[in-house]
């Protein structure tokens, strides 16, 4: 990198001076200061890990990038599109076209079969139903989700099975930017390795990945850099 400007120009995911606090209006207006002036940049092909103690604000930062939490101050862009302050339509389009997200827990839609949950982002992107299902089946196979489960809603699946459905969904499209919130948390060694391979493949095709990995070994295998969010802890007033 020649200079800082050049680096931030190339960032696929770019957080600058991001501050977040929650105001709990029904609890006496309690204000929880979570992050202050967080700066994180992720370039295409790079995987960056967020670290910091539980409650430090790792998931909060990921959620702000995804447009799920509002940004108090500062600026977030993904692929040049500004997320902070964006309207719903802009965020929806970004999620459809650019930004993938594997949440910490699968949010199950009642009665929707696992394979359709995985295929949904592909259908939304205009894939033909058969092609989308075939692709989803390939991912579920790779993640060792038994075929007998594919047609069932995941509400009764084990935590690990649900998480693998969630991962398959997150990796169904080749998003240029990807957010991962503890993707390997409830997985055994075999499936953890599958996820790490998926991450390597995504990096190889140029995806910018920002992730939280509880497991240091997993982190060291795929991450190029670590950003400790404790550095963005707000100063107590």
């Amino acid at each position, binding site marked *: 990198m020649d200079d800082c400007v050049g680096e931030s120009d190339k960032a696929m995911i770019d957080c600058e001076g991001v501050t977040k606090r929650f105001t709990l*209006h029904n609890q006496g207006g309690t204000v929880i200061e979570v992050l202050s002036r967080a700066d994180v940049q992720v370039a295409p092909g790079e995987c960056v890990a967020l670290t910091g103690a539980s409650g430090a604000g790792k998931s909060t930062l990921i959620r702000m990038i995804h447009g*799920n939490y509002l940004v108090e101050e500062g600026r977030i862009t993904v692929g040049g599109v500004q997320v902070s302050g964006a309207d*719903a339509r802009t965020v929806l389009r970004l999620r459809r076209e650019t930004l993938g997200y594997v949440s910490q827990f699968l949010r199950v839609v009642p*009665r929707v079969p696992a394979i359709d949950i995985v295929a949904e982002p592909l259908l939304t992107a205009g894939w033909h139903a058969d092609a989308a299902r075939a692709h989803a089946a390939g991912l579920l196979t790779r993640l060792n989700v038994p075929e007998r489960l594919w047609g069932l809603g995941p509400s009764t699946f084990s935590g690990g099975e649900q998480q693998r459905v969630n991962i398959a969904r997150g990796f169904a499209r080749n998003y240029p930017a990807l957010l991962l919130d503890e993707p390997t948390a409830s997985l055994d060694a075999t499936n953890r390795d599958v996820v790490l391979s998926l991450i390597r493949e995504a990096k190889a095709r140029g995806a910018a990945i920002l992730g939280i990995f509880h497991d240091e070994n997993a982190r060291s295998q795929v991450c190029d850099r670590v950003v400790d969010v404790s550095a963005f802890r707000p100063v107590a007033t």
Partner: protein
Amino acid sequence: MTAALEQPLLQVRGVTKHYGARLGCGDVSFDLWPGEVMGIVGESGSGKSTLLSCLAGHLPPDAGEVRFDVDGSLRDTLQLTEPERRRLHRTDWAFVHQHARDGLRMGVSAGGNVGERLMAIGARNYGEIRSQAADWLNRVEIAAERMDDRPTAFSGGMQQRLQIARNLVTGPRLVFMDEPTGGLDVSVQARLLDLLRGLVREMGLSAIIVTHDLAVVRLLADRLMVMKDGRVVEQGLTDQVLDDPQHGYTQLLVSSVLQV
């Protein structure tokens, strides 16, 4: 840029409605874009139905404008000519009522209820109307052999699915729904929601759904508007409003339900 060519399907500005001195809904503004589903939530009496009725042209607002994309230009729906207005209500718009009996003709067969909407837009070939009606009954999971039965013989969930078929058969561009799953058993609600989710995606429908059920909007709506005492207190992306609510009232609403 193609963005310059894009415009909202529905543009709402400052819509206000009073009932005497009482506020029904006040100063509501938003843009709805093609393919978007917007949810409106709020407790009973917050003005959701009043707003929806104003938007759908069932109730004249005291103030404000409702503009709809007619042949590429945004037109004030209160200023349309009679034929334009008719076209809007018969083809471009659909309204799904909370109580199926308000949206169905109870004395007419299921097939007739669906076929009638087609005839209203000029369909004349009996065989074709019947086959399209049959196709739609099938899509809303009503067995073909029930086609000649009257809705009075149907369960609540079936009546609601029939109402949806009647509304969607003309391929509307915008669907208004007032508590479409209200008053149904939870399992029946779930089935109806599945159906609506599928139809919304397949048809690329734009819709405005009024409900007091946050789980319904979590499932169906891209965007959410929260109303209280006739006013919009907060609006945004559905998951953002539910997961990071900014207004005290929304925080209360979200924390009062188990998990959505």
